[in-house]
């Protein structure tokens, strides 16, 4: 696939690296001092309370929002320092699943995927048809290719959008709240699908989520963005954050608890009440 070649890197290099990134809406600071790297085949979570700037960070990673300062490096190439042609080149190496699925409503599911393939690859028509059937079967929508997005349920839209995102075999997938608005079973199926995609394609995945079961099931690494201090306050997998972070917000979030009004003493880590046991987290049923 052409798209896959854009940001393929040696296994030693991170697929994506963020250095001292700051985001602003006009004069309002959203987040600053964000630095992290996403290794190949890693599932990386962007975590934080509502309104802390998770989706905004994702938008700046994909080129939809200009950061106030800092660097976003794809395979070592600085995205925001690059010219428009190279930016486009780098961006096509990413597959994006939007929070609202963002399927083009005037097209069928097949046409949605076909447009992505025509834009990202040099495949001929017959090869595109084969690839569309392949990705639709993968996400369990092989019978819904000629449906329009309006005729699909919320979960099916997410699966269809995921099929569109992976069609060009991108080395990096960005998922904005993939399981938002889904019932627990659909959410669980989507988690299993994401793990399957990672294991079959080797793509790195960056995802934004509030769903604790999904976070504990999927994330190998991550960053916790704080809405008050406007900077990251924890790094690592959700379990590492819970075990090692001294931040009350992180503990309250990971345990699904209300944050006390006064600043409490750092919490000592214990197992999360809601998080599944490690051996259960990777054992979702298939879609």
């Amino acid at each position, binding site marked *: 696939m052409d798209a896959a070649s854009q940001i393929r890197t040696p296994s030693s290099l991170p697929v994506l690296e963020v250095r001292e990134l700051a985001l602003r809406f006009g004069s309002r600071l959203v987040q600053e001092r964000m630095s992290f790297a996403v290794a190949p085949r890693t599932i990386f979570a962007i975590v934080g309370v509502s309104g802390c700037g998770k989706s905004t960070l994702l*938008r700046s990673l*994909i*080129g*939809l929002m200009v950061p106030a300062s800092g660097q976003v490096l794809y395979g070592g190439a600085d995205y925001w320092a690059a010219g428009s042609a190279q930016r*486009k*080149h780098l*961006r*096509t190496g*990413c597959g*994006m699943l*939007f*929070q*609202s699925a*963002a*399927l*083009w*409503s*005037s097209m069928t599911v097949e046409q949605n995927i076909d*447009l*992505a393939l*025509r*834009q*990202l690859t040099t495949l001929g028509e017959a090869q595109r048809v084969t690839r569309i059937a392949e990705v639709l079967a993968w996400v369990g929508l092989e019978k819904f290719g000629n449906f329009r997005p309006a005729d699909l349920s919320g979960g099916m839209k997410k699966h269809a959008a995921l099929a569109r995102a992976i069609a060009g075999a991108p080395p990096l997938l960005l998922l904005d709240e993939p399981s938002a608005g889904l019932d627990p079973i659909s959410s669980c199926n989507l988690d299993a699908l994401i793990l399957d995609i990672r294991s079959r394609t080797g793509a790195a995945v960056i995802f934004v989520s509030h769903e604790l079961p999904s976070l504990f099931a999927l994330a190998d690494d991550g960053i916790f963005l704080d809405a008050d201090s406007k900077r990251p306050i924890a790094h690592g997998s959700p379990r590492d954050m819970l075990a090692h972070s001294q931040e009350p917000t992180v503990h309250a979030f990971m345990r699904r608890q209300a944050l006390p009004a006064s600043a409490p003493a750092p919490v000592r880590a214990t197992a999360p009440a809601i998080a599944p046991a490690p051996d259960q987290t990777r054992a979702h049923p298939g879609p």
Partner: protein
Amino acid sequence: MAVQVSETVTGVLAAAQARLSAWLGGPEEAITFLGRIPLSAVALCTRRARFPWPDFLRVTLQCSAQALLIVIAVNLLVGAILAFVGAVQLNKFGAGIYVADLVGISMVREMAAVMTAVVMAGRSGAAFAAELATMQSNEEVDALEVLGMDTAAWLVVPRILALTVILPLLYVFACAAGLLGGLLVATGMMNLSESAYLDRSALILITPHFAIGATKSVCFGFLIGLTGCWYGLTASRTAAGVGEATTRAVVASIVWVIVLDAVFALCAHALGV
């Protein structure tokens, strides 16, 4: 005193500029948007951008066949109203036959193009704004950008092109409907013969009148398409934003159509056409 007046004037101008910027969505953004359209058109011509043929055909159908009936109905009534008002006044001077001049010149030079533009602003301009604003709020436009697609070439140029091509065609039907409306009133109320009315119309309807009307309709089509797309793509990403974009697109389109019509009238007068 002079300082106070100066400060007041500056304050009023700053407030007006802020309101205008808010209304337009920001002058820099507007200039960027305007600049992207010719670039995208060139990209389409040189096959560096994709043209959405199915979308273009769908939009063209909405702007043409599906709008034809309302355009004909409105212009038929406008022609009849002009004839009715003219008949009452002209009959006082025994100049009833000149109602054909009044209706013919008014419809062909002005009213057919303007009324068709107003109908299309309320129909297609509003539809463009609503559709693009909904796409914006559903992140569909972002999804196109992430793919590296030229969103102006994919979303804006086909819509502007559809209206720019279709409006002159609708104008022809509008002229015919307006003249028919005038004929019905003139023959029904004023006892003018059909042949006298048609002979008089054929005498006064010279090519420059049609040329001016057709040129206007091309410009109006471009303007309505541009305005609808602009307000759709700059809408806020909320349900209220869709409604607001639609309202603004219709109001702005109608205002700009009237302004442009006035400019045409001044230019035609200056050129002696």
